[in-house]
């Protein structure tokens, strides 16, 4: 979607000529930009906040940048493919014999990632196939499957680990 489409949508909705609607939309974004410059922040309900934030670069130099923080609801809706997925903590047994522990872990992680990605695409495909607005009803389906996958793979991992010497 771009400005032209917004203009035509406004013109249809409010029965305005395209010229008038165009002017109005231009005006809105002009004022938004000016307001942002004047006050360094804009806050709109149901949409979010745009403001100026300062960050530190790796060399410890202060940098300013513009950040957009969406409203909670919007952020949740955008993320609805993965909304129900939570962080998972996996405790590993200590293994002093394995010096290159980290390598071992990364190796497993890659496999896990690969499997995860493959399956994730498959799941998403099924849901996305027949529709315009996939997400509404599929919200529960995807994460549940993915969570199951999470668990399956992680259980496999821990079993494999148990069989390893040490």
């Amino acid at each position, binding site marked *: *979607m*771009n*400005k032209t489409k*917004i203009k035509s*949508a*406004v013109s249809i*909705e*409010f029965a305005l000529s395209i010229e008038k609607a165009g*002017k*109005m*939309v231009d*005006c809105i*974004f*002009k*004022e*938004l*930009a*000016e*307001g*942002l*410059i*004047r*006050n*360094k*922040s*804009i806050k*709109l*309900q149901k*949409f979010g906040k745009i403001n*100026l934030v300062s960050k530190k670069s790796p060399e410890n130099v202060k940098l*300013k*940048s*513009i*950040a*957009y923080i*969406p409203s909670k609801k*919007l*952020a949740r*809706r*955008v*993320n609805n*493919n*993965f909304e129900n*997925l*939570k*962080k*998972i*903590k*996996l*405790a*590993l047994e*200590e*293994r002093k014999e394995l010096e290159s*522990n980290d390598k071992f*872990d990364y190796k497993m*992680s890659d496999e*896990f*990632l690969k499997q995860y990605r493959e399956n994730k695409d498959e799941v998403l495909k099924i849901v996305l196939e027949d529709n315009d*607005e996939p997400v509404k009803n599929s919200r529960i389906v995807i994460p549940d499957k993915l969570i199951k996958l*999470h668990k399956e793979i992680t259980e496999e991992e821990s079993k494999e680990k148990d069989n390893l010497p040490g």
Partner: protein
Amino acid sequence: MDKENLIKRISKDSGIKKKDCYDIFDKVIELITKNLKKGKNVSIENFGDFIIQREEMKIFIKKNKTRIIVPPKDVIVFESDKLLAEKLIAK
């Protein structure tokens, strides 16, 4: 800056009634959010782009050998227009 101030200025600038300004403004915001919700990017000339990016799944390994799996996430990223950013940061 909040909505009311914004609408005042828009109404002054465009010469359209405040109430109509409200309606049109709400519609514009609704259009943007609707598209983002559908997973479509929104780009607005001279203002900036709202882009949906997928943060891939990450795995952290802690010193005590716990691993934390952070699931993937879709987030909205705002890339402001260069001129606007320059003006804003210069101020």
